[in-house]
């Protein structure tokens, strides 16, 4: 780095700290340090970009995991199944939330990752699912959870169509704001339609599902149930992604004009991914309602949408495994870093910026590396 560039950067960071001065209080005094760390990371990023050794190491690691993906998945699944035996009720609760968020992140990844449409009010579908289950199970005595679960998905899907049909032709940034508005509208309606949603007080007394011979009352049982649903959702999404639909989605993301010229109905593909995403969001919402036993509009804030998006971004946009990793990290880590609870969203915000700039493909890595590893395995050049 030349001296001139260095001084320019120093000037830049000093200015940044000065600007932040009005908002510097005792508990954000570490902020300048963070900026310095980011600067260091950036320097390291430049360095590792130039350094082939690091690139090769990364390739090797990714290749290693890819070649053993099946046993790895089984191992992880086994761990996930066994965990409840040793866990406290509290930890189980956290892990169950992580599972729900993993469903949400995988669902959101369909639109954000595959079709490249930013959906900011995704939590609206989650809320619709939760409220559908809440209303159906508490207000209609005959309707049990097993009917409410698919109904929640379908209702969310219908709302997805309702929102998607008029708006999916819009340009990406407009669409993002429209969905943001949608999330907000859902919340406002939940707050004000007292007769149906209970208003700000929400809905109480949502029962956990029963399997005929045993209710899923114990935290363990419910955890396993959520795990099963997650596995199913991930399997379905992975299979769709690895078919003509997934391919067409990526083509639409890359270039709508070219996709259209190859006979792909761009709008239909957008609609499919959007409504699938909404459907799984609704399913997650139904599980959430059953898990909490109580729902209120406060659970469905804009921050939840951001959190889910952050999981997708961190794990890697368009990378299903990444979404799971992201959900795990963002739900479980903060529980161990309780003293930073206040800074959680601050850090997530900064992370989103940093990831877009330094690692747009997320933690799990880009497809290029993975494919090259495959090519090496094939023996192709």
């Amino acid at each position, binding site marked *: 780095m030349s001296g001139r560039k260095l001084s320019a950067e120093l000037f830049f960071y000093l200015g940044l700290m000065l600007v932040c001065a009005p908002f510097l209080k005792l508990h954000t005094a570490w902020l300048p340090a963070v900026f310095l760390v980011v600067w260091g990371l950036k320097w390291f990023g430049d360095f590792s970009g130039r350094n082939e050794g690091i690139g090769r190491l990364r390739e090797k690691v990714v290749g290693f995991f890819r070649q053993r993906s099946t046993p790895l998945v089984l191992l992880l699944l086994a761990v996930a199944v066994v965990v409840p035996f040793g866990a406290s009720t509290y930890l189980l609760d956290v892990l169950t939330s992580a599972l729900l968020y993993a469903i949400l992140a995988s669902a959101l990844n369909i639109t954000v990752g595959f079709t490249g449409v930013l959906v900011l009010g995704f939590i609206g579908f989650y809320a619709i699912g939760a409220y559908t289950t809440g209303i159906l199970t508490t207000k209609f005595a005959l309707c049990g959870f097993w009917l409410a679960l698919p109904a929640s998905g379908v209702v969310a899907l219908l709302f997805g169509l309702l929102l998607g049909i008029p708006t999916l032709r819009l340009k990406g940034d407009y669409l993002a704001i429209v969905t943001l508005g949608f999330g907000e509208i859902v919340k406002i309606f939940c707050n004000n339609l007292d007769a149906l949603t209970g208003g700000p007080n929400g809905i109480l007394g949502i029962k956990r599902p029963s399997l005929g011979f045993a209710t899923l009352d114990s935290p363990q049982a419910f955890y396993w149930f959520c795990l099963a649903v997650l596995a199913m959702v991930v399997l379905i999404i992975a*299979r*769709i992604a690895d078919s003509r639909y997934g391919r067409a989605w990526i*083509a639409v993301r890359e270039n709508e004009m070219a996709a259209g010229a*190859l006979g*792909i*109905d761009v709008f239909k593909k957008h609609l499919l991914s959007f409504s699938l995403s909404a459907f799984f969001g609704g399913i997650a919402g139904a599980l959430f309602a059953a898990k909490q036993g109580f729902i209120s509009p406060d659970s469905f804030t804009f921050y939840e949408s951001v959190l889910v998006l952050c999981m997708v971004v961190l794990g890697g946009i368009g990378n299903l495994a990444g979404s799971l990793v992201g959900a795990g990290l963002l739900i479980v880590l903060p529980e161990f870093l309780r003293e930073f609870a206040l800074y959680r969203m601050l850090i997530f915000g900064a992370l989103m910026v940093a990831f877009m700039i330094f690692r747009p493909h997320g933690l799990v890595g880009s*497809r290029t590396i993975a494919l090259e590893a495959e090519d090496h395995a*094939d023996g192709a050049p």
Partner: protein
Amino acid sequence: MAPRDLLVTEGLSVEFGGVRALAGVDIAVHEGEILAVIGPNGAGKTTFFNAITGTCAPAGGRVFFDGRNITGKKSHEIARLGLARSFQNLKPFAEMTVTENILIGRESHLASNLLDAVLRTPRFRADEAANHRKARELVAFVGLDKRRNTLARDLTYGEQKMLEIARALALEPRILLLDEPVAGMNATETGFVMELVRKVQAQGITVVLIEHDMRMVMGISERIYVLDHGELIACGDPEAIRSNSRVIEAYLGGGKLAHHH
């Protein structure tokens, strides 16, 4: 017997914010021929393709494909009718492999539905296998065998152009519109593309091509249409075009010499 017209435009016009990009163009493409559309930069050649394929909406005139009026149809509907095209400035889908790129072109020939994909039914497997086979043939056809699993963005410029042709061919079109397929290629690569276009024709596919490279245009096209300022100024076989005074004037008058031939 007169040749059958596969693609016909009648008075096709396009406007951009009041500016006429295409002013009443009548063209008839005969089935099975190789036809070139040439003209100076900004003559409206690409706009002409866009108006035919539904990429931009025509302000007036009609387009007939195989006797059917396709004016105003959406681009994917037109593609499904058997009208494939390549783009001048667009590259293949960068984040997809060569094979996947070609499979996108197979979209309209796939039979499996969402449920098949989720349940991995025999129909899904058969469908995928058949189309992968087809894609492999096409990869070989354009000479990209060794690059099957490479991401399109890692291909060389020439390879990307070949991939684009293969992708369009995957539609199994009846007519192929190529927008400057050899722009930026060297002589060897151009020769390869010319050979390829002839092979495509031999399969019974009609080819319409926009090209600046006169060696290619004069070398393979049977008829040539010349556009200038959005208007058709000449048409005929290569010999006639070469000696047409209006064409020479259009090229020289525009201050731009055609690539020597």
